[in-house]
């Protein structure tokens, strides 16, 4: 499944400072769907190069990270249970505090 993953607000620093990743992620063996929980595990294994605790906490993202699936907060689509579809765009962005 082709997905576009974007990292912002400093999270890109955890993946070699690359903000946009065009990736191919498939459902796990025996599954026919890919959900956000699967994707997070995949991202942690395949994209996060350092300080994974700055990206995840338990099996979700750490506090202060917003997750957007197709420009929509994942809280509105079922959070970890959100089912992903071909060509979806998933954004991980750390909230900023500066000014």
């Amino acid at each position, binding site marked *: 499944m082709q997905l576009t993953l974007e990292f*912002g*607000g*400093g999270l890109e620093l955890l993946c070699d400072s690359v*903000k946009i990743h065009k990736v191919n992620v498939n459902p796990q063996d025996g599954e026919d769907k890919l959900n956000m929980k699967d994707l997070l595990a995949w991202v942690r294994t395949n994209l996060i190069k350092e300080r994974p*605790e*700055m990206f995840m906490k338990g099996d979700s993202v*750490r*506090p*202060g*990270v*917003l997750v*957007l699936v197709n*420009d*929509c*907060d994942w*809280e*509105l689509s079922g959070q970890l249970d959100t089912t992903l579809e071909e060509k979806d765009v998933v*954004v991980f*962005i*750390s*909230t*900023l*505090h*500066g*000014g």
Partner: protein
Amino acid sequence: DSGFGHGLSPDMIYRYSRQLLLPSFGVQAQSSLLKASILVVGAGGLGSPALLYLAACGVGRLGIVDHDVVELNNLHRQIIHTEAYIGQSKVESAAAACHSINSTIQIVEHKEALRTSNALEILSKYDIVIDATDNAPSRYLISDCCVVLGKPLVSGAAIGLEGQLTVYNYNGGPCYRCLFPTPPPTTACQRCSDSGVLGIVPGIIGCHQALEAIKIASDVGEPLSRRMLLFDALTARIRIVKIRGRSSQCEVCGENATFTAKQFQEFDYEKFTQSPLSMTPLKLDL
């Protein structure tokens, strides 16, 4: 009343004529602006353009909170301050600048850090609050105080080459804690003073904060509530995304929340976020 029915003097009609001409703004929205009061917390990178535009457009009463003094290393982004004010209070400097472009509005100087001990009293005097601060504990403190007082909050942030903007606690929308119930680890909380920022980035976000406050104050257009603007200056990309509504579980604004003024005053925001409300910036040695 000046006898014109709409409450605008001939001088005001002349000064604000380009806004009065505008069919979707006009006399009614301008009159609302002139009756409105807006508090800007922070006279720094975000607050500079927000204050200048709010003063210019005719907000009736404009409050400024800050405890800092102007430093030379502020001037690359804090365009409200001039070299002549280096070493002097940011609030005095900003108030003087606002007064020089519009002497007909009221400007209120709050030369102190916003804390649980003074926030309720200060914020209660304004219709709308703009969070133009630079740290996590202040953001929780201001949002909680706005929930307690029922004030809409226009929240902006910028660091490096990125900016973010949304409106909290407006018309049934979420508060800051609905989005961020748990504070981030302190290692994730960068400040402009430590991590750097391109000056124009808070400039753009601060302007958008002024716009959203103007829209709320004049009851024109659709404020950026339940939506968030995400700005990446480097690639010139802007997303406006849909975010969650008010959370029924929110500890401050949720259905069963009982967060009172007294609890607010006793809440330790520095302990909650594990970071100080204000701090001395690092020194740069090239």
